C-alpha cells in the first residue's frame, strides 16, 4: 500500500434517521480522509452531524434504524457494507473511540480493570491474568499513578481527568490504527484538558495512530489537528490544513466561529461576535445555502442555489462551499481582520447589505 493512500476515506456519506416528525438528515453527503499518524479535526456546533458521522464509522448508528449511504473505506474495507460480525472485530481493535462524558461512558458497577480487560479479551485470545497485566500496563501508560492498585477501583473513585485517561487506556488496549475522540475534553477542567490533549499527542507519536478529533472548540483543534473540516447542518462547509484554515478562512461560518472565540493576541477592545440565530432543522433544512438564514453576507440568489464544496483556485487542498466569489471572500476576511463589522465589510467590497433591494 502506497504512503499516500489514506487510512480512512469517507466518500459522500449520508446518514438519515426516519422519525415521526420526518426524516432527519443528520449527515448529508460528507467526504474526508485521514492519513496514518495524522490528526483531522472536525469542528461544528451541536447537531451539525459530527458525532453521528463518527458513530457511523464504527457501525454504531446501524441499530438506531439509520439509513446509511456512501462509502467509508478503512484499510481497503467498506465499513458501510461490512457485515456486523466483521465490523465488530474492527471496533475497539483497529478503530477505537472515546467519548465526551467519561463518567457516563464507563459502566458504574464494574471495576475499571474489568472494563479494560474485557476490551483486551474481546479481540485477543489471552488469559484473564495476562489481560489484567495489560490493563495495569495501560493505566500506567496513560499516567494513572499506582496502576496496580487503581486497576481495582470503580469509575466513581477516579477523578474526571483520570476517568478520561482510563477511557483512553481502554481505547488503546489493542493499539488501534485510528482513534476517534468525540469531544474528549469538553467535560473536563481547562488544566486537565491540556493534560489529556498532551497525552493523546504523545500516544499518537508512540503508536503512530491516526486521530479524528471531534469538537466545537477551535482551541482544541488548533492544538491538535493537522487538517480541519468545518461542519454545518450535516455537511462539510470548509476544509483545509489547520495552518491555512486559521490564517485564511474562506467560509462565513468559519469566520463566525473564529470571531466568537477570545484571542489573547488581539487588542482588548475587539468585541466577540456571536453567530446570530440557531442551528437549522435537519428535517427541513433551509433552501439554497443551508447557512443563508444566519449569514451576514447573504445575497439574493443564495436562498435558491445550493453551493458545492469546491477547491480554491490558489490552493487546491483548501475547499469551501460558499456562493461568494473567492476574491470577494478574501477581501471580506481582510476587512474583518482590520476590525470592521460585517456590515461595514460589505460596504467596503461593494456588495449590498442583506435585505437591501438588489
Amino acid at each position, binding site marked *: 500500500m502506497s504512503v499516500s493512500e489514506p487510512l480512512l476515506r469517507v466518500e459522500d456519506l449520508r446518514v438519515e434517521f426516519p422519525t415521526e416528525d420526518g426524516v432527519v438528515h443528520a449527515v448529508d453527503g460528507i467526504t474526508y480522509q485521514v492519513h496514518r499518524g495524522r490528526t483531522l479535526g472536525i469542528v461544528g456546533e451541536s447537531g451539525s452531524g459530527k458525532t453521528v458521522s463518527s*458513530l457511523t464509522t*464504527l457501525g*454504531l448508528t446501524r441499530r438506531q434504524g439509520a439509513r446509511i449511504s456512501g462509502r467509508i473505506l478503512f484499510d481497503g474495507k467498506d465499513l458501510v457494507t461490512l457485515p456486523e460480525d466483521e465490523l*465488530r*472485530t*474492527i*471496533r*475497539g*481493535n483497529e478503530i*477505537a*473511540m472515546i*467519548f465526551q*462524558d467519561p463518567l*457516563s*461512558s*464507563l*459502566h*458504574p*458497577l*464494574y471495576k475499571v480493570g474489568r472494563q479494560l480487560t*474485557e*476490551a483486551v479479551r*474481546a*479481540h485477543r485470545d489471552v488469559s484473564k491474568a495476562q489481560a489484567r497485566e495489560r490493563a495495569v500496563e495501560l493505566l500506567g501508560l496513560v499516567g494513572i499513578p499506582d496502576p496496580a492498585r487503581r486497576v481495582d477501583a*470503580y469509575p*466513581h473513585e477516579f477523578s474526571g481527568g483520570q476517568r478520561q485517561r482510563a*477511557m483512553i487506556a*481502554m481505547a488503546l*488496549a489493542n493499539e488501534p490504527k485510528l482513534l476517534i475522540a468525540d469531544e474528549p475534553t469538553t467535560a473536563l477542567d481547562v488544566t486537565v484538558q491540556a493534560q489529556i490533549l498532551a497525552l493523546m499527542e504523545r500516544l499518537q507519536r508512540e503508536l503512530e495512530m491516526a486521530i479524528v478529533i471531534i469538537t466545537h472548540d477551535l482551541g482544541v483543534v488548533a492544538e491538535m489537528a493537522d487538517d480541519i473540516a468545518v461542519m454545518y447542518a450535516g455537511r462539510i462547509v470548509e476544509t483545509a490544513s489547520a495552518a491555512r484554515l486559521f490564517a485564511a478562512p474562506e467560509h462565513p461560518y468559519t469566520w463566525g466561529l473564529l470571531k466568537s472565540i477570545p484571542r489573547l493576541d488581539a487588542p482588548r477592545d475587539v468585541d466577540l461576535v456571536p453567530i446570530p440565530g440557531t442551528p437549522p432543522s435537519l428535517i427541513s433544512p433551509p433552501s439554497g445555502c443551508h447557512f443563508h438564514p444566519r449569514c451576514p453576507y447573504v445575497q439574493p440568489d443564495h436562498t435558491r442555489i445550493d453551493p458545492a464544496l469546491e477547491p480554491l483556485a490558489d490552493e487546491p487542498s483548501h475547499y469551501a462551499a460558499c456562493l461568494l466569489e473567492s476574491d470577494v471572500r478574501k477581501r471580506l476576511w481582510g476587512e474583518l481582520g482590520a476590525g470592521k463589522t460585517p456590515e461595514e465589510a460589505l460596504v467596503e467590497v461593494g456588495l449590498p447589505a442583506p435585505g437591501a433591494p438588489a
Partner: protein
Amino acid sequence: MIRYIIRRLLIGIVILVVVCALTFVFFRILPTGNPALLRAGRDPQKRLIKEIEGVLGLNKPLIVQFWDYMKEFFLHFNLGYSYYSQESVRSLIAERLPATLSLTVGAAALWVLGGLSVGIISALRRHSLVDRLSMGGALVLLSVPEFWLGFVFLLLFANDIGKFKILPGAGSYVGLTYDPWKWFTALIMPWIVLAAGSAAIYARLMRSSLGETMREDYIRTARAKGLRERAVIRQGVRAAVNPIITLFGLEVGVLLGGAVLVEAVFNIPGIGVENYKAIQSSDFPVVQGTVLLASSFIILANIVVDIAYAYLDPRVRYS
C-alpha cells in the same frame, strides 16, 4: 457496615414494639374485642365473664398487659397461648411457617426467573410481536384476582375436580421432609398462581429498566469496544436489576407473613390462613403473634435489601 446493621436492627426492634402496641390497642377498641365475652357462651352471667377475664389476664390495665406481653416476648421468646386451643403461639407459628416458607420461596424463584426473562426479551425486541404478546399477557395476569386464578387452575388441573387430572388439588400439601415429591407436586399450582401477578410486574419493570440502561453511554462504550452483543446485553441487565432488587426484598418479606388468599384456595396450612382464622375468632395472642412475625419479616427484608444494595452498587456506602 457492622455498626450500620446493628443500628438498623435496633430501629427494627423499636418498630416491632410500636407495631405490637398498635395491634394491642386496635384489638381492644373493636366492638367484638372482648375475648372473654366470646368464650363465655350464650347469655353468660357477669360473674363468668369476670372469671374468664381474670384467667386471661384481661382485667389488668392495658398498659400492664402490654408490659407483661413484651416481657414474656423479649425474655423468653414466649408469644402467649391461644385463647381457644391453649396451644403455645410460638409452636403454632413454628408448625405453620414451613408451609408459608415453601410457598413463598418457590413462587419467588418462579416469578423472578419468569418475569425477568420475559422482561429482558421484551426490552430487547421492543414493539415486536413477542413484546406485545408478553406485555398484553402481563396486563391480564396483573388484573386477575389470584383467588380466581387459583380456582381456575384447580378446575383445570386438580386430580379431584379438574378437567385434566394431572396435579394434586387443594389440601394435598405435605411437609418437605415427609415426602419431597408430594410436597413439590402439591405446590406446583400454588406457586404458579402466587407468582403470576408478581411475574407480570417484574416483566414490565425489567422491560422499562433495561430499555433505559441499554440507551446509556456505557452501553455505547461496550459496543465501541467490540464486545459481542450478548456481553453488551449482560452489562445492561446488570445495571437494570438493581432497582428491582428493592421491590423483590419487600415483596418476599410481605409474603413470608402469609399469603392468605393462595393458602386459603389451596388449603395450605400456612401463617396467612392461621392469622385470618385468629382474627375471625378474636384469638388475640395468635393475631398478635402472626402480626409480629409478619412485621419482623418486613423489617428484616428491608435491612437485607439495603445490605444487598451496598454489594450490588459500589457507589452506595452506609455509615
